């Protein structure tokens, strides 16, 4: 720090002045409720639409088909979620920039096709084939990101071109057969491995302990630095929410086959991306770019590098999603990654609270969002609805989620929160 502030801190001595107009929440639960209410009115919807949506969707499907909320179906749901959810996390990163990637669906399919061809036709080691699939994703992301960042072609157009082109490449890669079945090995095990009940509970306990410790460490260092800590009531409510959600989830999963590996992979990826976006300078610069590109450039941040790498992350995650989808389907076909994959991934990110306008959202929101989207998809399958109806409903859900985003944005602007 330069000596300027030190001098003044030593000389002035006065602590930070608290503006008398700042509304400080009352301590305790009452204050929490008040703060939450104020946030909602200001357009900070957070996870509320997701939770309300989930309750409505689950109630409707459960009344229509009593198999919906069974342990078996919920376990299937979690397996279906992992693939598109991973793609949705990549979409989340791109949306943070205020950009869009329309190619993620076919990129996932193409990456899976490359993996299948290398493994089945060329006898590659399955792990190496997976790595190759992810590299394909990263290269595609670097290419599309560069066209966008270097030449200034709108990301919408670049990735729309990719949407068509990668689909064509996928057809080429798969060749005349058009589909490749995967043998039972490391790849298919990704989505057919389940942990024992004890391991599942151990995971829950570790997560909760780590979470509480992290909160306490932060609390202590904030107090040590003389800053206002997060209210203990808030920490308590957050911890309880997370603990209850995890316990219920693992309890349900344990009643069927147990905690699926695929869900752990997906959850792990969400966790890593959450750390990157919230705790690193890189992540902060992604948010900054979503807020004001020129200001970010003037702050000396390499905008091109950021844009290209974010597109690489998006496409790489799409590739991982494609691998998970192939693993679950035990095959790659010409339509892998097509159909509603793209729409579902975007809808999941947006419905979870990531703004299409950039600079706003949390990685966890992709997890919650995909839970909503996959519940709808799974429920419609259970009811045996026609494909036409499913497309119409998926489209309507996406529209509803972006509408919500646009309305919330107006609320934020009215409340002076950008």
């Amino acid at each position, binding site marked *: 720090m330069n000596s*300027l502030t030190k001098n003044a*801190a030593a000389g002035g001595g006065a602590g*930070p*002045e608290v503006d008398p107009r700042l509304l400080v929440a009352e301590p305790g639960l009452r204050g929490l409720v008040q703060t939450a209410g104020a946030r909602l009115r200001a357009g900070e919807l957070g996870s509320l639409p997701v939770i309300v949506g989930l309750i409505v969707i689950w109630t409707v499907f459960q009344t229509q088909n009593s198999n919906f909320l069974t342990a078996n179906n919920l376990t299937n749901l979690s397996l279906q979620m992992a693939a598109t959810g991973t793609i949705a996390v990549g979409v989340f990163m791109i949306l943070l920039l205020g950009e869009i990637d329309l190619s993620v669906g076919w990129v996932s399919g193409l990456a899976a096709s490359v993996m299948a061809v290398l493994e089945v036709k060329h006898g590659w080691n399955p792990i190496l084939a997976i790595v190759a699939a992810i590299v394909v994703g990263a290269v595609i992301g670097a290419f599309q990101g560069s066209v966008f960042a270097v030449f200034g072609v709108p990301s919408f157009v670049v990735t729309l071109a990719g949407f068509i082109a990668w689909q064509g490449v996928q057809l080429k890669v798969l060749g005349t057969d058009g589909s490749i079945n995967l043998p039972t090995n490391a790849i298919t095990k990704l989505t057919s491995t389940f942990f024992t009940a004890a391991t599942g509970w151990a995971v829950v306990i570790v997560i909760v302990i780590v979470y509480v410790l992290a909160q306490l460490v932060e609390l202590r260092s904030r107090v040590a630095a003389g800053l206002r800590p997060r209210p203990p009531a808030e920490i308590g409510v957050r911890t309880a929410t997370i603990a209850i959600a995890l316990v219920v989830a693992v309890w349900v999963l344990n009643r069927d086959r147990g905690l699926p590996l695929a869900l752990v992979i997906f959850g792990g990826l969400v966790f890593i991306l959450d750390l990157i976006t919230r705790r690193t300078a890189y992540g902060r610069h992604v948010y*900054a770019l979503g807020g004001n590109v020129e200001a970010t450039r*003037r702050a000396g941040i390499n905008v091109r590098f950021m844009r290209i790498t974010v597109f690489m992350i998006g496409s790489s995650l799409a590739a991982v999603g494609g691998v998970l989808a192939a693993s679950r389907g035990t095959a790659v076909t010409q339509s892998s990654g097509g159909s509603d994959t793209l729409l579902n991934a975007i809808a999941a990110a947006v419905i979870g609270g990531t703004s299409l306008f950039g600079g706003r959202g949390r990685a966890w929101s992709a997890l919650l969002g995909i839970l909503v989207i996959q519940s709808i998809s799974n429920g419609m399958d259970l009811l045996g609805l026609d494909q036409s109806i499913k497309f119409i409903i998926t489209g309507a859900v996406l529209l509803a989620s972006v509408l919500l985003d646009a309305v919330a944005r107006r609320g*934020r602007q009215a409340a002076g929160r950008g």
Partner: protein
Amino acid sequence: MTEPVLSLRNISKRFGAVQALSGVDLDVPAGEVLALVGDNGAGKSTLVKTISGVGPPSGGHIRFDGREVHIGRPQDAVALGIATVYQDLSLCDNLDVVNNLFLGREPRPAWGRALHVLDEIEMERRSVELLSTLSVRIPSVRIPVASLSGGQRQSVAIARSLLGDPKVVILDEPTAALGVAQTAQVLDLIVRLKERGLAVLVISHNLADVFAVCDRVVVLRLGRNSGSFDVAAASQEEVVAAITGADTVLSGAGRAGRRAGLPATAGEIGEAGLPGGSGGAADAGDRGHQPEREPDPSRAAGPPDAPGSEGPGSEGPSPKETSL
């Protein structure tokens, strides 16, 4: 005068058909405050952007610390130690005050340096400290800057420039949106920066402020040098004359012998500064070397290039009207 830390020679800048700067020279010595003045559209902000890497010059040379340098990107300027507060405030509305202050130079704790982990607590602590030094009053350092007033945003932008331990600080109309107390703080701060041996370049339309804190005044007019004055020896009238072009003084501090009919007080500058005003038409013959373009009257009369509706100029009278 010491060897200038920043020295510009023959700087030019074109925007398509507009020659915004032609042959501008500027020396910014360490330990001095240099004022850059001129009418609206004279090219002051453009010149600042050539130094800060936001809009590199089309021609000319820049020397920094005695070395010829090329500033092609904002990173280059930051690396040299040039900090800039832009007229169109460069803040990210969606980020909170702390993150805006540290954007691009976030402190990282020792254990997480390689992973670029953020040290939020250190950032917040230093933000609170810095803002209270500058007497900036904001509700909380953790609210998005979108919810700050124009002056509060400007204070944040100024505070931002001081974080990186710069050698040269450039302030483009730093007090335009500020209240009385905050303006005094900024002027006081400028003096303190100078006392610490920094080179300060201030753009302002308020000659009273300029004369209060600056050592030299450089005047730009229609994209060219139009005079350079030693504040101790010059009068405001002479500077005004150079700004309006009432007399094409190229250099020379403390010259006397103005022509009659010049605005005598600072209060008349606004009027005289308009094209076609008392000064503009009278000396058309003297300005054969200058571009034929006159400043756009709508620009000259309006508020500074305020960013959108949230800019500092949007509330109440234009800052220039109040300051002059």
